[in-house]
């Protein structure tokens, strides 16, 4: 059975009940899935290839719709069919890191990191400029700022993607196999960043095959037959 996580009386940041998702109306990739995540949770989701980990991340990240059940993000109930207005929730509350980086190769590191502000009402003020400087320094991107993304290595690209996910200071960070294309050294850098973020009270969901990432503090789930099981 799926597992419910209880963490005091606090309201969960992500709450999923009875979630079902099918692509072909024959097989349910996610089937009666339950999940509750609270501020400061670092969640690691494992599972065989093709079990629906990316599908789950897309649903939580409002990048895809679902068929049955309920999904609440930071107290806002999401309809089954993702509609245009969710782009605002996406823009305000969620940062994404993908295995394939998903950066715009033709523009510079800085422009990629600042991309989320093109689609928001937030003015790029001094606070944001300071945040940008801090993120860039923390991730060791200082010297790459004006370089075109196409010219970067895999590890550098993933750090840029993380910087972009953090620039709007979102509550939730969704990382779908963020270290899948990285070597040991870069994997360690990326995971350390996530750990720091967790301390800042963010909800972090990481999909990974790399068991070495996890520590005893993390919530570890295994996705199988459309359900999440606590490891």
């Amino acid at each position, binding site marked *: 059975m799926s597992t419910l996580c209880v963490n005091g009386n606090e309201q969960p940041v992500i709450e999923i009940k009875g979630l079902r998702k099918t692509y072909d109306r024959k097989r349910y990739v996610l089937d009666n899935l339950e999940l509750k995540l609270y501020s400061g949770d670092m969640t690691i989701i494992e599972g065989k290839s093709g079990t629906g980990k990316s599908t789950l991340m*897309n649903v939580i*990240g409002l*990048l*895809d*719709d679902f068929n049955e059940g309920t999904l609440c993000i930071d107290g806002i109930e999401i309809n089954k069919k*993702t509609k*245009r207005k969710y*782009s*605002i929730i*996406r*823009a*305000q509350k969620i940062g*994404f890191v*993908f295995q*394939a980086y*998903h*950066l*715009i190769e*033709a*523009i510079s590191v800085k*422009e990629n990191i*600042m*991309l*989320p*502000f*093109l*689609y*928001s*009402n*937030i*003015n*790029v003020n001094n606070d944001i400029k300071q945040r940008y400087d801090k993120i860039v320094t923390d991730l060791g991107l200082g010297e790459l700022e004006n370089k075109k993304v196409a010219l970067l290595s895999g590890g550098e690209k993933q750090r840029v993607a993380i910087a*972009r996910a953090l620039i709007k200071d979102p509550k939730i960070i969704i990382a779908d196999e963020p270290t899948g294309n990285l070597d040991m050294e870069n994997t360690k850098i990326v995971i350390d960043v996530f750990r720091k973020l967790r301390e800042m009270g963010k909800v972090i969901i990481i999909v990974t095959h790399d068991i070495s990432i996890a520590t005893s503090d993390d919530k570890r789930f295994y996705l199988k037959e459309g359900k999440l099981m606590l490891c």
Partner: protein
Amino acid sequence: MLGIKNNIMFIRHVLMMVFSNVPRLILSICGLFVGLLVLTTGNILMNSYYDEAMNRACEFSTNNISVLLEADDEFEKKIISDIDTMQVELKRVSMSSESIYSEQYSNGNICSLNAKVVGTTSMDSENVLMKYNENTTIPVHGNLTKGRFINQNDVSKKNNCVVIDEFTASLLFGEEDPIGKKVILGVGNIGMENVSDEDNVVDDEKDNSFTVVGVFDNYQVTKSNQLEYEKFRVVDNGNIVMSTYIYVPYTALDENGFQEDAQDYLIWHYSDNSGYEKGLQVLNDYKTVYSHKYSKFELMTKDDMKSAVKKELRPIKLFMWLILSALLIISGINSMNTMFFSIKERIGEIGIKKAMGANATDIIVQFLMEGIFMAYIAAAMSLIVGGIVAELIGKGIQSMLFINFKVNYSMETVLFTLIVAGIYGIVFSFIPSYYGAGRKVADALRFE
């Protein structure tokens, strides 16, 4: 723009995306450019042709009413004295042409100029006649460039004086001052030597020469003969007979026996609109009463002339428009094709932007801006290149076909191209970008 406060950042980003893939940019612009170039060039040429024809018609002096009348002298006198006597002027055009210039070139070709002698009651109002086409002669404005026009004094004294146009003056007298020179009718008529002496006795009684007192210019009159003459000099095949009108006092015409087979133009000049309206009313009434009695009673005003020209040009204009719109649609679909594949290729970019908070409108706005931007680059290019191409074609038409053709690069043409480019940019990038923006984010990201 919805949800986008950081407009400048956004515009900067759009421009960066436009220039991020130069081959794609060039290809898209080329597609748009070809369509817009054909449109611009075609439009300039079509408008120039139209304007030229219209200009000729518009030479018709404002507030004039011209009546072509074939009636007996009694009736003519009556109509002249009945309706605004002060404003009316009679131009009696001899039907037969008199040769006033003839020259045989060394290659045997003969160039001659025939004149129809126009007897006029006065030329104070500077009206001259122009053959608009085979069937239509219209009164147009002539600018005096030398001497004077025929006046009342000439008419009452039956002076043998003549007013000619610039081209005629240059052909007859070259660089010399034409004032005081004589225009001799029947010069160099082929076969004149063969006329028997008995016949010449009669001819001797009338004076065949008129003294030039004035020269006038009218762009259309001068230009058409000049081009014909140039064509003769350049193309050099066979003989050429040009024709013109020369103006003598009405009474001198009488004296010289040109009366019998003449065609009469009665021209009323009005300086004010209300007089014109009234005159037109009265003349129209006259026409309804008398037109079936006389073989010719044709009334014409500037408006009639303009609408006749418009009617004449309508089929040509329609045909040109059909061709242009067909070309426009073809090249439009071609551009849409390019845009569509460009957007398909950029589905990943769309997915990324949507994951970063962009909504469908943001995506459409971006591609619309790109489309419009490229369309306006193409428009600017086609306005420059189209102007040059049209100018070259116009020159070619003028020098090879000897048709009076002045290329007219009007504000309208520019505006038209800009409007079409805008529509191009919007329509042909909206459809593909609407498709692109409608993809689910998860699906779009899978493309990457």
